[in-house]
């Protein structure tokens, strides 16, 4: 048992170690501050700013859109619907199941929709697809938090004559740290997901100026550059992997921080 634990913890530490060591060797300031220059893909100058910005755009857009859809759903199944509502059960079950559906399926579906509406691979299409991927994560995480809020809170607001809408606002404010945790959780997934943006967001060397333009993303930058036969380009993939890992780790540490804050205020 100790051996198994050591193997698992060891292999996980080894991943961080390998990525850090290989990444630092090829990391430099140009990587995070410049877009690719001419001949970038045969080892000439430039950086990955296009992919970093593209990933940030997609993540922020998808998170915003995802919140717009999932907050009403979560409020509905927790506050508006009756306690024994079958709709709430079905919704929770759907989110749990669609949480497990691989992002390549979302990607293929997103691409079908794109073709149907005559859209090209673009920032907008990428955002929409990633939104589909993260809605289950957002909804379930927020649902857990609001469900844990004590029932006395709603008893109190209703007895003061508040409507369900006003009660919702009270609940939202009460679970703000939990919502932050949900946002960070889902953006961690959104920024690292490659398969869903592969066909939908496209890839480009410039920073997208509008929703209709294609956007590069960090995971795809890693993926494409790693398959290059040229050593300098491969090195950039390692550096990009380190950048992505650091971003994701910061995001998840942030979410740990907020969930700790949440449990501190627990009534």
């Amino acid at each position: 048992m100790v051996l198994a634990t050591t193997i698992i913890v060891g292999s996980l530490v080894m991943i961080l170690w390998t990525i850090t060591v290989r990444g630092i060797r090829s990391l430099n300031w140009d990587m995070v501050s410049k877009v690719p220059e001419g001949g970038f893909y045969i080892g000439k100058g430039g950086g990955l700013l296009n992919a970093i910005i593209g990933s940030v755009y997609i993540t922020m857009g998808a998170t915003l859109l995802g919140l717009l859809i999932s907050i009403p759903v979560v409020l509905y199944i927790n506050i508006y619907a009756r306690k024994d509502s079958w709709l709430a059960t079905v919704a929770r079950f759907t989110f749990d199941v669609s949480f497990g559906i691989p992002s390549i399926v979302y990607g293929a579906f997103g691409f079908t929709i794109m073709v149907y509406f005559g859209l090209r691979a673009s920032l907008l299409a990428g955002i929409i697809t990633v939104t589909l991927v993260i809605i289950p994560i957002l909804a379930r995480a927020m649902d857990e938090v609001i469900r844990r809020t004590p029932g006395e809170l709603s008893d109190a607001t209703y007895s003061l004559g508040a409507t369900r809408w006003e009660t919702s606002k009270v609940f939202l404010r009460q679970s703000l740290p939990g919502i932050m945790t949900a946002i960070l959780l889902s953006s961690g997934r959104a920024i690292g997901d490659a398969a869903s943006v592969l066909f939908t967001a496209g890839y480009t060397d410039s920073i997208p100026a509008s929703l209709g333009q294609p956007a590069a993303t960090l995971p795809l930058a890693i993926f494409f550059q790693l398959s290059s036969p040229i050593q300098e380009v491969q090195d950039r993939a390692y550096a990009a992997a380190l950048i992505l890992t650091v971003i994701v780790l910061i995001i998840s540490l942030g979410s740990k921080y907020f969930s700790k804050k949440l449990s501190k205020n627990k009534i």
Partner: protein
Amino acid sequence: MSRYRLIKDRISGNLFLVFTHLSILTVVLIGAGLYGKSVPILKQSSFFHLLFSSEWKPFKNQFGFLTYIVGSLIVTGLAIVIALPLSLLTAIFISEYMPRNLKRLLIPFIDLLSGIPPVVYGVWGVLTIVPFIQDKLAPHFVEFSSGYSALAGGVVLAVMIFPLIISILLEVFNTVPQELRDASFSLGANQWETVSHVVLKKSVPGILAATVLAVSRALGETIAVLMVCGNQALMPHSILDPVYPLPALIANNYGDMLSIPMYDSALMLSALILFVIIFLFNGISRIVLYRLERRSYA
């Protein structure tokens, strides 16, 4: 004033209800959309012929998924065979043996790693697992292996699903009431007897559910597998041969398949197959986990 408030309440209620229905409908839409796209190929040849034929010649209109399905099964099987025993032992160790302060250190660490994107696991696989197989392992068994193989895919996937399985198992073990353990100890059982006769026995459905969830995660994983599996559409003879799993097939061919209509349809069918299998797997295991959860509250 108060009427205004009531109207606001009614409007928000209806609006939210619509959103809830829409979000549930999305899953149905995904299934229907993929099915609609795969109808042309299903009309052309029978479903079972597509599944069990290994002829993949898009230009001659022949689409047999067998090589890809076998590839997916081998990689997923390897990942589960590696990951399940190790994760099970680790979860038992963490849950039943480890002192509390160590637990508090280790669990967040494992959680943290579950957030690392698949593409990073893929990079790690290319950097360490692939060369290891090529230089150290493969020469003992076969004449040549590039290292990009089913085994590499299995190992990378196994490491990827460690955190998933462990965190579900820890929750499952948590639902076993402490009183049962206490009762077992008071009858003179030692720690291991308690674990094997009480905790594990009570957790069998949960362990199965965790396994099924892990299988569906491994089946659908795309990028990490794509990076280390070699992607050659040949029937593999050993786990040191390259394989070409289904998600990798979709990912690699999506860009240039639009010119051949049947190709498009064939790839959509493979996405549909993945969707249906994983939907069923997830659904069943979630139901099992819900039951467990309810038991622990009751």
